[in-house]
């Protein structure tokens, strides 16, 4: 507990970190309370292509849906996918990373699989698979998890390899502690900071990948994520030559950008805390 408070105190000093957290809280709140915050049902149709006015603050799209409501509900879809995927792939990656760091033979085989995953370019592969599957949220989530865990597993493993031979682990082993007890009690707590950073980084990758796939038209057409809104805006013929881009294309794009920015700031500040060398204090 004391460690957490000290950690938070340190984090408070990081300006980008606080900014990132602020933006994230804003989007989280709008995602959680979407039904209360959004003025309309995002699927309800009104007069199409209305310019922003007092009824529709950001106008309506080509089939008459309120864009502001779409954005607010979109934060739900985008953030849910991002954090669900990153949580599950971090759990899988951590478990496999711990085991493969601790048991050498298993680690060897697992790391060959990880090598394969990391060597194959992720994005084109995901695009092709999704194009063959039916586009649905759960298909996307499944595929992102499938390609998400190897990174975490690799990072956790290399950390476990260095922790495994620390004196206190040897001591625990000599006292007769079983492997799983050592892993859970002595090694896992030491990799928690790494896991958190990895969680944030992975969430960023997923947001980017999901919005990218949606932009290419491979998203779930029934779930409006920010990327999907952007996709429909891009497909609209006169988007580049009329005024409508200002309220149809710009807001979802900025939502994606600010989410990525906030995750980037948060992960950077956390990494700085974990690795003091990055803080720019010269070592003597």
């Amino acid at each position, binding site marked *: 507990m004391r460690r957490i408070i000290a950690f938070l105190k340190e984090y408070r000093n990081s*300006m*980008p970190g606080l900014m990132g957290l602020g933006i994230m809280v804003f989007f989280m709140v709008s995602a959680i309370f979407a039904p209360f915050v959004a003025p309309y049902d995002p699927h309800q149709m009104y007069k199409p292509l209305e310019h922003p006015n007092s009824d529709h603050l950001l106008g309506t799209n080509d089939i008459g849906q309120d864009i502001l409501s779409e954005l607010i509900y979109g934060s739900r879809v985008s953030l849910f996918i991002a954090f669900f995927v990153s949580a599950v792939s971090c759990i899988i990656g951590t478990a496999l990373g711990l085991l493969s760091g601790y048991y050498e033979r298993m680690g060897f085989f697992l790391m060959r699989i990880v*090598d*394969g995953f*990391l*060597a*194959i*370019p*992720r*994005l*084109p*592969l995901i*695009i*092709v*698979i999704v*194009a*063959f*599957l*039916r586009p649905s949220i759960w298909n996307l989530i499944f595929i992102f998890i499938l390609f998400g865990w190897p990174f975490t597993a690799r990072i956790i493993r290399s950390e476990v390899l260095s922790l495994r031979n620390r004196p206190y682990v040897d001591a625990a082993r000599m006292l007769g502690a079983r492997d799983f007890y050592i892993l859970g009690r002595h090694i896992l707590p030491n990799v928690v900071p790494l896991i958190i950073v990895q969680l944030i980084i992975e969430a960023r990758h997923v947001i*980017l990948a999901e*919005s*990218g796939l949606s*932009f*290419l*038209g*491979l998203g779930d057409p029934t779930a409006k994520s920010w990327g999907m809104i*952007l996709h429909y805006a*891009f497909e609209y013929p006169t988007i*580049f*030559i009329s005024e409508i*881009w200002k309220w149809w*294309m*710009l807001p979802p*794009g900025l939502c*994606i*950008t*600010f989410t*990525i*920015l906030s995750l*980037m*700031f948060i992960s*950077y500040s956390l990494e700085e805390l974990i690795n003091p*060398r*990055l*803080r*720019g*204090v*010269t*070592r003597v």
Partner: protein
Amino acid sequence: MNRITKIISYITLIILILTFNFFLPRVMPGDPLSFLTGSPTMDMPIVLDEEMRAELLAYYGLDKPLLQQFYDYMLGILHGDLGWSIYFGAPVSDILTGALKWTLLLVGTATAIYIVLGIVLGAISAWNRGSKRDVELLTFVLSISSFPSFFLGMLFIILLGVNLSFFPISGAQTPFAEYSTPFEAALDTFRHLLLPAMTLVIAHIGGIYLLMRNSMLNVLGEDYILTARAKGLSEWYIMHKHAMKNALLPIITMIALRVGFLISGTIFVETVFAYPGVGRLLYDAVTYRDYPLLQGAFLIITLVIITANFVADMTYAHLDPRVKHE
């Protein structure tokens, strides 16, 4: 790992990808001939009766045993046969070779700028660590590289292309243009290249910048930097000869990985700018559910990325004497 095992592992990887490409349409749910009949959303879905089906299956060799199909497929790939594009009505390999030169031009230009700019900015930032300039640069670079490439591209099109009419907004050359000199043609190509390349670089610069900055910060904490200072060497000399060189070495393979991301990024950038490269073809293939073209484009993009990684791996062995003598 010595050179031969490396080469073997790359060959294995390519075989793995070819195998994946072969099995993908075969293990996915649905009809193996669905690539012919198109998606149900197509304007005129083609309906096949039993006899036609059997005939088509025989024509594509889909009634043969799987192993035989696989052998034929591999043989076809070696002969440059990637199938027939439904949408364009032409061999996939012909369409792709036409597009590849544009993708390579775009990727080559962007990669060169990306690597140099990222390394220089990262080094400057690390060198001024903790100072105002470092914080400003860090915030700035992280901010601009938070823009997803497709969104940034759309913004560039509207702000620089449409509003200022300073840049052409689509294509790789002006359609139907007649050039009097090769120089004019090059200029036109360059003008079309600039915005997509800029978009690619800006959207990806954060990764390489942070990588270089972190690696450089680690190096700057080393004792030999202190020694160099104590010897009274000039700051400029220390930064170039001692810090940058040593900071670059451990991250070369990671840089190659980022270049891979950048190449993947051309899919979005080419789509937004209607740049006639392989990435744009991938998008067309997705839109029109043209599966042979989709698989061909995927194969080419993947091979380009793997080649880039391979080159980086081989260069690394040349640069690091410790690896070379192993």
